[in-house]
């Protein structure tokens, strides 16, 4: 009997059918990736496996069997015994998936005790053990930390450790690396790989990143609009795709080696930062997030900013658009020092959840800059908003929908549309495509390029995906610890990295070729050992 057996699964949210007649199975010890564009229903399937839709008002049809439990018919108690013990889930967002009030070790111990009924001591010991297992250094001490004292990567590891606590037969990982930068992403994927090798558990990986899938699984299931497009061994599906959609998907994946068509960069400097510094907190708690950063952005050019999580990219971006006062240094727009915000310099925010007001329809949000500019004609506003939504690949008829009715990627597109609505000259894009599936990502990247050429837009493109950054950027700035460690034309930085840190970053980029991926995994291990 297979580990997971899903037959004719449908999930409906009100009128919306998010998953439609999906059938698949997963053998013990095997690894399956659910890939597909944003909003295709991947997370919905993952949740359905653990019966998490119960009591939320969603309608679930078909049959689901996980590790011998009939999820659809199981009693609450049986479901409870399934969750965490036989099948464990690692959630997309490590920031908010841990309870901020309790020590991480205690949270893991709690899960352990719930299922084993063991003593508090034993559970704590187990927590330290799994934390150690996922590579948290000095696990015994760190287990007493609270989540906010962990870095993003450590938190993701902690979540994986929690999943491992009861030695489940199935690990469901819903976008386990989306929020992480490439180096950490590579570490996490490597960790998942090793764990699978060692414990023999099954893995269901949910991701929109085909590269991530290529690195970690044996089989791939491609989804679209809640339906299956194609399923098969990873080498087959990625190597010789049968369906046009899969082909489209693959062709859209940015490749690190790809060479960018030069943009219409001019010499006219629109935005300039000189000696920017930003510190948070005072006294002993003072922390400098950005330190002495100087850069220039020219009309029509794209400046890529890469760097690991916490290196100060967002902080820099916020200072560039004027949302944050620099502690020292200044930002000049068209040669004039500038204080405060200016609609001509826009930003696409990193977090698609909090960047949209949950109580306003997305159309209204996009219309904001238009109205702020004094546009009163409702028809014109509607027309323009619909047009903008179309351009970023959204359905113009969704004007009155609320953010929660969109998937993560769709929300990000709303953010871009809103930035465009202001007719800006500069857009600071803070990870604008990291939540997008590759097709949309390609579209958005193309769109940004198109807009750039058309309007002479200057872009600051912040991202952790080096491939994407290379695709769009004329010049690259590499950040680490609040400073720019390397800057230069894109080709130069990628082909002849000067800084060792840049080299490390490049080595972490996932590739589409599973065999190459295995090779690079070993390389990385060596790199880490030296």
């Amino acid at each position, binding site marked *: 009997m297979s580990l997971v057996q899903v037959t004719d699964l449908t999930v409906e949210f009100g009128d919306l059918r998010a998953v439609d007649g999906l059938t698949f199975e997963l053998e013990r010890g095997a690894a399956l990736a659910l890939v597909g564009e944003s909003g295709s229903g991947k997370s919905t399937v993952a949740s359905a496996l653990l019966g998490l839709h119960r009591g*939320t008002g969603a309608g679930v049809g078909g049959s689901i069997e996980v590790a011998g439990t009939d999820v659809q018919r199981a009693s609450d108690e049986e479901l409870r015994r399934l969750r965490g013990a036989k099948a464990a889930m690692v959630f997309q967002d490590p920031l908010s998936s841990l309870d901020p009030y309790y020590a991480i070790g205690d949270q893991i111990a709690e899960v352990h005790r719930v299922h084993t009924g063991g003593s508090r001591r034993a559970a704590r010991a187990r927590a330290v053990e799994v934390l150690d297992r996922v590579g948290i250094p000095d696990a015994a001490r760190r287990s007493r930390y609270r989540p906010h004292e962990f870095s993003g990567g450590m938190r993701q590891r902690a979540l994986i450790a929690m999943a491992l606590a009861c030695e489940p037969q199935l690990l469901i990982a819903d976008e386990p690396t989306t929020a992480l930068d490439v180096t950490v992403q590579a570490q996490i994927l490597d960790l998942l790989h090793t764990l699978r090798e060692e414990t023999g558990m099954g893995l269901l990986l949910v991701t929109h990143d085909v590269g991530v899938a290529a690195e970690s699984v044996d089989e791939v299931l491609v989804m679209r609009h809640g339906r299956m497009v194609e399923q098969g061994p990873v080498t087959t599906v990625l190597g010789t795709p049968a369906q*046009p959609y899969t082909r*489209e998907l693959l062709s859209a994946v940015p490749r690190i080696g790809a060479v960018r068509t030069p943009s219409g960069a001019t010499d006219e400097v629109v935005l300039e930062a000189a000696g920017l510094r930003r510190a948070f907190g005072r006294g002993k708690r003072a922390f400098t997030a950005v330190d002495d950063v100087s850069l220039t952005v020219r009309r029509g050019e794209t400046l890529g900013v890469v760097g690991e999580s916490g290196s100060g990219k967002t902080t820099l971006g916020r200072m560039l658009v004027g949302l944050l006062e620099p502690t020292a240094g200044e930002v000049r727009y068209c040669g004039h020092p500038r204080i405060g915000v200016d609609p001509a310099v826009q*930003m696409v925010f990193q977090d698609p959840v*909090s960047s*949209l007001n949950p109580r*306003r329809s997305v159309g209204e949000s996009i219309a904001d800059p238009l109205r702020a500019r004094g546009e009163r004609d409702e028809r014109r506003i509607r027309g323009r908003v619909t047009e903008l939504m*179309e351009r970023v690949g959204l359905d113009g*008829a969704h*004007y009155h929908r609320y953010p929660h009715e969109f998937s993560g990627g769709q929300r990000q597109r709303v953010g871009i549309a809103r930035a465009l609505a202001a007719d800006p000259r500069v857009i600071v894009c803070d990870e604008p495509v990291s939540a997008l599936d590759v097709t949309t990502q390609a579209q958005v990247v193309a769109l940004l390029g198109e807009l750039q050429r058309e309007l002479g837009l200057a872009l600051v493109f912040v991202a952790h995906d080096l491939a994407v950054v290379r695709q769009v950027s004329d010049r690259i700035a590499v950040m680490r610890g609040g400073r720019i460690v390397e800057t230069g034309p894109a080709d130069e930085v990628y082909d002849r990295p000067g800084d060792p840190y840049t080299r490390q970053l490049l080595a972490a980029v996932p590739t589409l070729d599973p065999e190459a991926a295995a090779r690079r995994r070993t390389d990385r291990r060596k790199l880490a050992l030296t």
Partner: protein
Amino acid sequence: MSKALVATQASEAPASGASGARQFWRRLRAQRAAMVAAGTVALLVLVALAAPLLTALEGQDPTTYHSALVDSARGGVPIGSLSGISSDHWLGVEPQTGRDLFARLVHGARVSLGVALAATTVQVVLGVVVGVTAALGNRWVDQLLSRATDIIVAMPLIIMALALLAVVPSGFPRPVLVSLIIGFVAWGTIGKIARAATLSLKNLDHVAAARLSGWSTWRIARRELLPGLAAPVITYAALMVPSNIAIEASLSFLGVGVKPPTPSWGQMLTSANVWYQAAPQYLLLPAGALFVTVLALTVLSDGVRTALDPRAASRLRVGTGRRQEAQANAVAETAKTNAVQEAGS
């Protein structure tokens, strides 16, 4: 192609295009308890407004004494069972005076609901304005307003109300004055709630995005912050109505509230207190009316809260005109797929 799409959608738009207010109503209507509560509140307000009509219907007024209907030798307890209920006096009469209880109850609703709602409005407006301004203002503004809030919170309300009411000349319309004073001395907690909520909201990216749109601070506060503040503020405000009624009662009790012979529920409760054994109705009527009001307001506030949250739509199983939208989707999808395939080939 894209032009054609825009055109189809523009024609579809009205079908799926439910505006924010309409959706709010739809979500509110989906909650039965909230609708019952809203009906009750509306009824209470109606009764209050129509008090003179209702009492005319009964043929009584709230101030006329009926000495003959009370037993003078027994402290003025109403003669007859159930506080002297009769076809003339639908709910019986008041002990000692023999005034008509029904008339006093419905007229009392005017004062009590009027004062409480007006005072709550003042409190909410003041509290939210001060709280939001403090949270959005610079350090000095924040310091100043927060201190003012501290002072208001730290001062015993009844004492200040007593003192202030004594200062204002007695010519000033009393119910207005009472509402204003209760409003002005008791907005502290709302102020604090509003400030805290604004502080946490203002760091969200959607507020930053609104700033980048070029909106003024005022407009941002109104569009981005106020809706987020609504939930905590409405919850608390629903509880402030009964507490304002109680404050009005205490002030009446201390002799500075609404003037007799104008009835109010608070006054009725105050004087009915000791009568609960000899004439239970006298106490139970205003107490019951108040309880119903509070219950209705609480349930309604819950409903409004839920309805304010677009995320509640799916839980409430309220459609947002999705079927039409889904059809439009399907059209667009085929168009898109075709386009992609064309591009691929």
